[in-house]
């Protein structure tokens, strides 16, 4: 199966997740080996996803836990959980 660039872009997400049919995956790899544009799209997408998954990209706001605890402390005294 010969894939064009557009087809490769559509499948990049599934390629990253490893959920592609083996024959489509092989065709993609064949395309990627010869198309530096698509290879750069794959590499950059993969790199960006790797960076956004890093816990340093999304940290809890400073004092988040303390404020949550304080809010709960002030409110929970006024109410009880519904019993079963």
């Amino acid at each position, binding site marked *: 199966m010969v894939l064009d660039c557009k087809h490769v872009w559509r499948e990049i*997400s599934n390629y990253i997740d490893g959920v592609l049919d083996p024959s489509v995956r092989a065709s993609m790899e064949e395309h990627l080996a010869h198309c530096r544009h698509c290879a750069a799209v794959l590499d950059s997408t993969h790199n960006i996803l790797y*960076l956004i*998954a890093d816990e340093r990209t*999304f940290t809890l706001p400073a004092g988040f836990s303390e404020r949550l605890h304080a809010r709960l402390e002030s409110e929970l005294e006024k109410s009880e959980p*519904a019993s079963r």
Partner: protein
Amino acid sequence: MVLVLGSQFAGCRLNSNETQSTTTTTTDPRPLTEAEMISRIIAGERELFYDLIKPCERAVFLTAFSVLKSEADAEEVVQEAALKAYKALGSFRGEAKFSTWLVKITLNEARMRLRRSRAESEVSLEEFVDDGDSDYTPAVLTDWREIPSEALERKELRALLRRGLDELPEKYREVLISRDVRELNIEETAQLLGISIGMVKTRLFRARLMIQKIVAPELRAQGKKYTRG
């Protein structure tokens, strides 16, 4: 009175970014199960509720943030959701994990807040972004120089990535944060967001290409700075 020694228990659905520890008592060093903690909270040990929700903080914050795009709004929604969960704890049947239940409550709260704020302002253009078969094109680059994770020490890189997420329409941001930030699997993402597995894959493909298109050109332009560390 039971003294709470640890700060957490082993009940929340966690990924590598979401920390975990255990709660034990002076009389029993075995970590409490989720069901035991909930029973004891309902019986009056209110302070255990903090330990129940502590491991879920990052997950619920990210969920609220994925809808609202505002840290302050997300934080308020998390507080409301935690209170709601506490009050409704007696109705929690344990069919799902507590964390799944709490995240779902948070998602609903965040969506309700977003709907209220939209009703008060103009209708968002996001409403008109459909799931049709329109083309989604990435930023086509001639090459790519990998940005190492150490570069995340730079504030401007973190800001750039977050700006990229902010620019995504809500439905794509929700999927991307669930799948690629919280690292839920496709089935869990579908269940949380109430959409089909096929829809998760479609939105994920678009969300990933969109964020690549927004972020990659700038990252590439600044690549030398990031790769130098």
